[in-house]
């Protein structure tokens, strides 16, 4: 990760609306690939996207894209969550219009528009008015208008919202095609864990404006052998606090707590066990973790709640 230039780097990003803090000291760094921006509704995803696009100004902290602090919108393609279409325009006209707004010449914009709609297999539907489109086609056109000027970074806000399963799979296929074969970086904002697990390389988890995790999907989900699920009873909170950074997440099960732990060579299994015992915890179960994103995600949210209490 460290050797290539970071696509997005946020440092101590804070955004307040009056007394309400929407983003609180968010720092992360992501590199090329598909980046899942994950969080429940109201977690601050949309605000973060607006900050990345330069449509909003952070209260403090800074963002750099491709190592530059000044946002170049021409290098970014954005697919908004809102319908954001002009119903009276035809599909290909709309995409070409988006291209023209990015500075393409009209001729180029039209050619590009047809190319991309071909690529997204839109067929004859492109000659119909946007007002008559189904949700799936609207999402495709929105993706096309983000791609028309060949951006390096695609920011997609809920691209799979309202799609039926085949259309959703198709959309995810497109995303991985553009990231893996065309070398684009894609930020995929969603609250659907399945989408993230299907295509993302890296994950940034947000909740209540706090960045709970930012790492590769593999590391988070813990397919590697050094992640463990420990069920702790007894003095649970002290035990979790004693684990500190090692504890990736926890889930209160009533009576005992599921704790997700990340080990590395410096801190072995024995070490972790002794820490829990020293804090007054009782270990009920200690197994290597092969969980899915759901477990980890809920664990992350639960840990935040626990720490806050």
């Amino acid at each position, binding site marked *: 990760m460290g050797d290539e230039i970071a696509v997005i780097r946020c440092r101590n990003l804070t955004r307040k609306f009056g007394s309400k803090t929407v983003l609180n000291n968010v720092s992360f760094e992501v590199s090329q690939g598909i980046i899942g921006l994950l969080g429940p509704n109201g977690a601050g995803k949309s605000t973060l996207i607006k900050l990345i696009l330069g449509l909003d100004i952070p209260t403090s902290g800074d963002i750099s894209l491709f190592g530059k602090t000044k946002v170049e919108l021409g290098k970014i393609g954005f697919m908004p969550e809102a319908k954001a*279409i002009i119903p009276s325009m035809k599909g290909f006209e709309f995409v070409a219009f988006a291209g023209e707004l*990015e500075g393409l010449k009209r001729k180029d914009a039209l050619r590009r528009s047809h190319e991309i709609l071909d690529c997204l297999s839109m067929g004859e539907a492109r000659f119909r008015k946007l007002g008559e489109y189904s949700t799936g086609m609207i999402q495709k056109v929105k993706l096309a208008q983000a791609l028309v*000027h060949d951006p390096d970074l695609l920011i997609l806000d809920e691209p799979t919202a309202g799609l039926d399963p085949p259309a959703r799979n198709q959309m995810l296929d497109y995303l991985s095609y553009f990231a893996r074969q065309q070398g684009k970086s894609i930020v995929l904002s969603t609250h659907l864990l399945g989408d993230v697990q299907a295509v993302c390389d890296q994950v940034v988890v947000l909740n209540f404006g706090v960045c709970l995790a930012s790492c590769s999907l593999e590391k988070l989900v813990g397919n590697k052998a050094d992640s463990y699920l420990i069920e702790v009873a007894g003095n649970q909170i002290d035990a979790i606090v004693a684990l500190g950074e090692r504890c990736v997440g926890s889930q209160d099960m009533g009576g005992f707590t599921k704790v997700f732990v990340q080990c590395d060579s410096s801190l072995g299994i024995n070490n972790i066990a002794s820490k829990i015992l020293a804090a007054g915890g009782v270990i009920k179960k200690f197994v290597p973790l092969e969980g899915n994103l759901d477990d980890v995600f809920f664990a992350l949210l639960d840990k935040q709640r626990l720490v806050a209490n």
Partner: protein
Amino acid sequence: MSVPSLNSFLEYRPWRGLRNPVWMGAFAITRESLKLIFTRKVFWVVFSLAVLNFLLYFFGQYLFFWVADQQPDGLVRVGGFGRANQNDMLQFLRSVLKMDGSPETFRNFINLQSRGIIVLLVLAGASLLGEDLNQGSLIFYQSKSGGMSNYIGGKFLAASFLVHLFATIPALFLFLEICFIDTWTYLLYHPRLLLGIIGYGFVINLGLVSLLFATVGFFRSTIGLIMCWAGVFFLLPSLCAIMIDRLKLNPAFRVLDFWYCVERLGEKCLGASPTLHPSQTDHSLNPWLAAASLSFVFMVSSILTIRIYFKKGVES
């Protein structure tokens, strides 16, 4: 339905062509907004009324100069309807219809045409601007390189084009018509008129379009727009009429009447004499006050527009 495999895609091609300067995007916005307006029925209704009015003035002028050119034997053949007194006709065209190529001709013509513009903007203005605010498509423009300045610029150009299409351009045609019918010395004797037509066009343009931006941005619906403009173009003039014409208050109160100020400035641009009701003394407003009123409206509207459209960080 089967899930398409990656092989079914046509290959995506990267594109690194030459790009226009970013501000050129504004013209694309103008073009698309005008296309949108041209698909509206209300545009064609208002436009045909405006064309009728133009034709009335066009042939009225023609008639005036034709009658003036006839042998001064006092009688002119009017089609199959017999003969009419030449002086009567000239008098009618000159003082009643004011179709004699004087500044008043152009003032009356542009005033009438601008009524049409008001109706058009009030009915179609919301679809020009408001629907973007309502349907959340503003973010589409915001996320493009030109951002909101392109959007505002493009929409401003589109609305201005409509204003000039209805008022300035036909007025210039009328001017040209007189140059052709009369002599080109008309141009030499009335250079101010030519500049005045253009000047009046721009006064209407600035006033109406800035008002449109602010009101649409604030109300975001045709209803609010109609109500607000009814206040500006109907309530204010009638209040001013009560205050000044009936209760004889200071004529300076007319600064409240935005549209009167615009017309007064236009009058000054063209060098036309103010319209007076019979037996009324000159109660017209000092043009500087009119200009001050107009620039006040322009400034407030611009500030509102900037605050509404360039607002950063709206919670969604």
